[in-house]
């Protein structure tokens, strides 16, 4: 069972308390965007084997969306952080790199 610490209310929530929201840090496009950009935003996903940055909602708790870094090969949760950012915090990236030396890093 996955356990995430909600960065807003501090609760250690297990997955039935949460709602998964898919890949984080997508570049958003709206009306007037090219077909390619719109397709990338709406459908194309990294779907990596390994480190994945993703969105979760503390649905049955404070209700807020937050970000998490998790390994799709082991289901290890590396950490959670606020949704009010365009990229993961530097310390978290460093921590993951230490655990996963082969990881290509945040891109």
């Amino acid at each position, binding site marked *: *069972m*996955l356990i995430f610490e909600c960065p807003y209310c501090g609760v250690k929530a297990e*997955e*039935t308390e949460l*709602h*998964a929201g*898919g*890949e984080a840090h997508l570049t958003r496009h709206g009306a007037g965007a090219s*077909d*390619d950009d719109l*397709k990338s935003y*709406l*459908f*194309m*996903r*990294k*779907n*990596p*084997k390994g480190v*994945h940055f*993703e969105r979760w909602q503390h649905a049955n708790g404070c209700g807020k969306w937050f970000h998490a870094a*998790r390994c*799709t*090969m*082991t*289901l290890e949760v590396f950490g959670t952080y606020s949704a009010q950012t365009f990229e993961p915090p530097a310390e978290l990236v460093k921590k993951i790199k230490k655990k996963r030396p082969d990881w290509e890093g945040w891109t």
Partner: protein
Amino acid sequence: MRRYSAFAVAREALRYNKGWGRAWRAPQPKKHYDVVIVGAGGHGLATAYYLGKNFGITNVAILEKGWLGGGNTGRNTTIIRSNYLQDPSAAIYEKARGLYETMSQDLNMNVMFSPRGVMMLAQTQHEIRGFQRTAQANAFQGVKTEFISAQRVKQLVPIMNVDGPRYPVLGALWQERAGTARHDAVAWAYARACSDMGMDIIQKCEVTAVNQSGGQVTGVETTRGAISCKKLAILVAGNSGDLARMAGFRLPMESVALQALVSEPIKPCLDVVVMANTVHGYISQSDKGEFVIGGGTDMYNNYTQRGSFHHIEETVRALVETFPMISRMKMMRQWGGIVDVTGDRSPIISKTPLGNCFINGGWGTGGFKSIPGSGWGMAELVAKGEHGPLTAEFGLDRFNEGRFIDESVAAGVAH
């Protein structure tokens, strides 16, 4: 290849079954093939088979990182139906269902296709309207389905509680010629036929890189050495994203876990397949007597081939209301597979940014039923380099053009 027949069974019975021999060869990989297929699941093997049978291309290798049929093909709950909503889906799933009817004869191996009928329960007003619409669409597509009453449901499945307190059964979409087949046998039958045509099925051979030059694939690196090829076909289901990464493109697809479970065996009491989309569960009884049960996927990206416990609980809870007898049964085994889910819940059968590389995936929770139809169409795409009518709508370009084949509303549950 030694033919399987009643005579052969009798002959082997008389000599202690010592004369059967291997069903397929275990060759060393050659340096070069005309076509290399990645993934010896049902789709990869069927593609190889129809490449040989329909197009005479037999210098083919099928590379498999584990054992053949050990991916989703050997983990699925074997529901075969073709009552989809959109025309392109109905066409390919119905083609596949038709090929299943004659598969045992065609491949000379009993795949235990059992057209026992599939019913999809309507448990809300919304579902009644949805299924009536599907039945209407199926009538135009030439797929025989009908919307049946709750009384008829009870007649077909006496052990069902149609007056459940939460979601009473209001009717069902019924496809009489749908059913199940033995999943392993489907993979084995294709493998045996491919090997017999001289194709090499190479197990424990993982593709680790895709070599290319000037926009064309030249070959692959594997754990058993480099292999060059004229054409590459990728059919790796939940690992599609990983192969695409090796080849240098991205896909509109994510990999998530889907689970299933089986009960202890009991006497025959359920001779159709029942799917309940609103409460997220489906059930059939195997020839051994076990209830084969499945439900919904997890929500998050996953490559571990195991899923979350609460989904098992949710699935069983959903079915207990409709089949009260389940509450006293023991569940014996539970497992997971990694399914490849696309944005419109329809598969991808497509050219790729690399000229001689083709991909077939995104069958998600429902690609066992399509194995022969998908292989038939994919073989044409690989052989000719162009789509035939069966696969034309399933290209990656549909995501650019907004030309979706939206089955997400039609197929509410994993199957």
